């Protein structure tokens, strides 16, 4: 341990980012993002483009949502597992995670603009139509006609039976009429959706708009609260020091993890899986999570590399940290493949009609090339490239791999969302210019998130300078 680092070697007050170094980029990013945002809002309001662009905008926001969720996950896991090595890079975890509020806010137009909402989540359209007065009256009339016909039939029976002297049968028919009772309009209310979409009727307890709004708001409030609270404790420790906050964060992280899991899983189900409300997969939450944790770690590696290139964290983050982060990224490449394959495999093998729909779209014709590319580029290539230890111990190379992983993760999210834009059997179905819209939305949200992220770096030290176990992390070894 010749290169053992002592507290004397580290700046006691931590390192603060000299914002002048990055202010130019931050302003440029936010400027470009702002212009993009205005254009996007306009595109979301123009009837000709809003349906196609709604999917693009969902892609952009969900993509950065997954990255921020990854940041939250690594923060919580770091504390819950009482990890020692991660202290040096913990602040980066927290910073990446605390961008979660921005995709949440940017997602808002999708819920507010009715035609966009209807094209994205078709079930909302069915529900809104069911609430339509004329449609309601129509359904009520239909049911009333059915009711009256049934009652008339029994009355006919009563009449015939009485004429024939069959009193027993007449009594039974009268009992039936009493059982059917008067026509009651209020009982029909729930059946309107049943008429339109029987599957949605079964899921209506979950898929209804008041509950959807409640979930959308509460999930983002929960996730934002979790990460802001963790960051607050962590930055308070920069001033006070001591073990008390370390213990508190560890305890809190264990409590936050289930909350985080629920918010993330049902968020994925609400915004992505519910695009096709007939389809379901019990693995969807964990599938979404695998990609989130992977891309979150990739972004963390990139941010650490950026800060080191700017001249920070030089003594705190060593090649050992890169090795560990590389191993975690590698692990989640495999975990993603495992989960994705499990989801595909069970559906493919069982071959049950209501489940195969998802892969019927994605594994036929045009989208099949993208799906096969996903298998090769998201698993085979990074698996081989990240396998040797020296590759994980070369920061420049690992940063390149992190960029690569982010790009293929974009392809993954793209395949979750975009195929649903076309008709169900999409034989080379392309909306002209839609792919430009997709890229534009991703770049716009990316500019806003990256700009906001650079601004968030101004405050606080770049590493937890008074964490009692900082030296354990700085001298980490694996």
């Amino acid at each position, binding site marked *: *341990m010749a290169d053992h680092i002592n507290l004397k070697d580290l700046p006691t007050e931590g390192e603060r980012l000299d914002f002048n170094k990055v202010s130019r980029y931050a302003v440029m990013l936010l400027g470009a993002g702002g212009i993009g945002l205005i254009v996007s809002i306009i595109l979301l309001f123009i009837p000709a483009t809003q349906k196609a662009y709604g999917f693009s905008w969902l892609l952009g926001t969900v993509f950065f949502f997954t990255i921020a969720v990854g940041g939250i996950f690594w923060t919580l896991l770091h504390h819950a597992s009482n990890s020692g090595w991660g202290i040096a890079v913990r602040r980066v975890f927290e910073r990446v995670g605390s961008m979660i509020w921005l995709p949440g806010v940017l997602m808002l137009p999708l819920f507010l603009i009715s035609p966009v909402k209807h094209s994205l989540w078709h079930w909302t359209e069915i529900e809104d139509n069911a609430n339509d007065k004329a449609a309601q009256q129509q359904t009520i009339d239909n049911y009333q006609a059915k009711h009256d016909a049934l009652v008339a039939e029994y009355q006919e029976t009563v009449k015939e039976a009485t004429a024939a002297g069959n009193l027993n049968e007449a009594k039974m028919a009268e009992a039936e009429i009493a059982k059917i009772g008067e026509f009651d309009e209020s009982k029909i209310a729930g059946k309107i959706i049943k008429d339109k979409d029987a599957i949605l009727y079964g899921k209506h307890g979950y898929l209804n708009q008041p509950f959807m709004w409640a979930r959308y708001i509460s999930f983002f409030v929960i996730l934002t609260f979790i990460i802001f609270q963790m960051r607050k404790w962590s930055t308070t420790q920069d001033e006070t020091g001591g073990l008390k906050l370390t213990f508190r964060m560890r305890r809190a992280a264990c409590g936050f993890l289930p909350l985080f899991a629920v918010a993330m899983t049902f968020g994925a189900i609400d915004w992505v899986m519910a695009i096709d409300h007939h389809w379901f997969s019990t693995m969807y939450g964990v599938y979404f999570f695998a990609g989130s944790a992977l891309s979150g770690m990739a972004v963390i590696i990139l941010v650490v590399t950026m800060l080191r290139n700017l001249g920070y964290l030089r003594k705190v983050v060593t090649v050992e940290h890169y090795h560990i982060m590389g191993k975690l990224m590698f692990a989640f490449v495999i975990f993603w493949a495992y989960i994705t*394959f499990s989801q*595909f*495999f069970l559906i*493919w*093998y069982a*071959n049950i009609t209501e489940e195969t729909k998802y892969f019927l779209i994605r594994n036929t014709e045009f989208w099949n090339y993208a799906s096969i590319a996903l298998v090769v580029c998201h698993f085979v290539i990074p698996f081989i490239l990240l396998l040797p*230890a020296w590759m994980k111990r070369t920061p420049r190379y690992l940063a390149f791999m992190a960029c690569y992983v982010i790009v293929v993760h974009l392809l993954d999210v793209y395949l979750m969302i975009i195929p649903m834009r076309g008709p169900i059997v999409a034989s080379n179905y392309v909306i002209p210019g839609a792919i430009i819209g997709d890229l534009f939305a991703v770049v716009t949200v990316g500019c806003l998130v990256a700009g906001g992220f650079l601004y968030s770096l101004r405050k606080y030290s770049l590493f937890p300078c008074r964490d009692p176990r900082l030296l354990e992390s700085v001298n980490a*070894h694996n």
Partner: protein
Amino acid sequence: MNTGIKKVYGYLARFETATALYKAAAKVRDKGFKKWDSYSSFPIHGMDDAMGLGRSKLPFFVFFGGAAGLFTAIALQFGTQVYLYPTVVQAKPANLFTIPAYFPVMFELTVLLSAFTTLFGMLALSQLPRFNHPLFESKQFARATDDGFFIAIEARDPRFNREQTKEFLEEIGGTDVELVEEQL
């Protein structure tokens, strides 16, 4: 069987603490000894570097073990169910596109043979299991499983010298330096 013939195995020196052992090991490494080892009752973090061991050769073998498992699985499944006797199960085609059905076995055999190679490769590389070790001749060496920290420099090492090595071990803080002789 005791033949009465003895052969010098090497010097054994005891250290009081794990830290002392760690620092002494770094000095032995810097002196240029190759045939030597350190003994303690628990793993000491960073000892690989202090002893200058470098990376293990094991991953190299494990890669081939895993690859052998993978190709065994491919051969057994594709060979039997696609080439020799094409079998249609659950309306799945008997060609390359049935490959998802074969993944579980491919995965399991890769893991199984990797694990076997790791376990038996580790045993082979550390020359285990063995019935005896020359150091068992030393009475104090029993403490290696309790509270003793030892360094043994073998006589096979080209730098070994009866006087100088003993002095060297005492110099770096070893106590109870003992010449271990094995029975032939």
